[in-house]
């Protein structure tokens, strides 16, 4: 219980939700690449804007509520079908460049969030051990 209170304050829950989101998005994007030859396949994506909107609302709630009282885990992820690329004659609207770019952006976001989380946890560890290393 005490550990729950510790890790559910500050930026940690935000970062954890963002990490879960980038993981889930990676799966959807990998699905797109795997289906590059599938006839009639529609490109899928998780809506980054909507997710960040919901995250922002939670952060605002967190600022005015007691520490650890705002639950971050009920943010939903919506699957959308982006209208990028040209529709080729097999009904698949893929664009290799767009898929690779989405993957690169997602991977960079993931790396950033992992680094920030690592910093959070090591700061907590420093406080627990009462030693700076």
């Amino acid at each position, binding site marked *: 219980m005490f550990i729950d209170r510790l890790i559910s304050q500050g930026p940690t829950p935000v970062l954890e939700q963002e990490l879960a989101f980038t993981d889930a998005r990676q799966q959807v994007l990998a699905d797109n690449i795997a289906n590059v030859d599938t006839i009639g396949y529609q490109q899928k994506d998780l809506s980054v804007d909507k997710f960040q909107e919901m995250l922002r609302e939670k952060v605002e709630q967190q600022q005015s509520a007691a520490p650890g009282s705002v639950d971050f885990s009920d943010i939903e992820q919506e699957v959308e079908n982006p209208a990028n690329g040209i529709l080729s004659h097999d009904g698949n609207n893929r664009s290799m*460049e767009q898929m690779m*770019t989405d993957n690169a952006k997602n991977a960079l*976001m993931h790396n*950033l969030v992992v*680094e920030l989380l690592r910093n959070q946890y090591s700061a907590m560890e420093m406080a627990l051990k009462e030693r700076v290393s």
Partner: protein
Amino acid sequence: MFEILDTGASGLMAQRARLDTIAENIANMNTTHGPNGEKTPFRRRMVLLGAGRPGDLSRPGVHVEKIEEDPSPFIQKFDPGNPDADSTGYVRMPNIDTTKEFVNAIDASRAYEANVTMMETAKSMFNSTLRLLA
């Protein structure tokens, strides 16, 4: 934060469209009939690019404005035995010059590589920024 990657991707898609059109031109170098059998030779296609990302023209990037046909005249080839020859014995061939197409192809593929290098640079800059934290 990742706008530069989207800009690069739009550049890649535009150069790919150019390369696709060049490939179509080269494939149809000797095409004297239309898709439904009409007796018009193939006209060279050109890709016109415009500024602005496809889907949101105010963001930086490039998009394919249109794919136009080259209005320059057809090449006349003297071949009286050919079933496509007109009354004077000349056959109208597509206005496609292989040399020009290949030079454009080299240009498009170099531009594609330049865009990829740009995106790699952006990624490595971002990763080195992350190392500041660690």
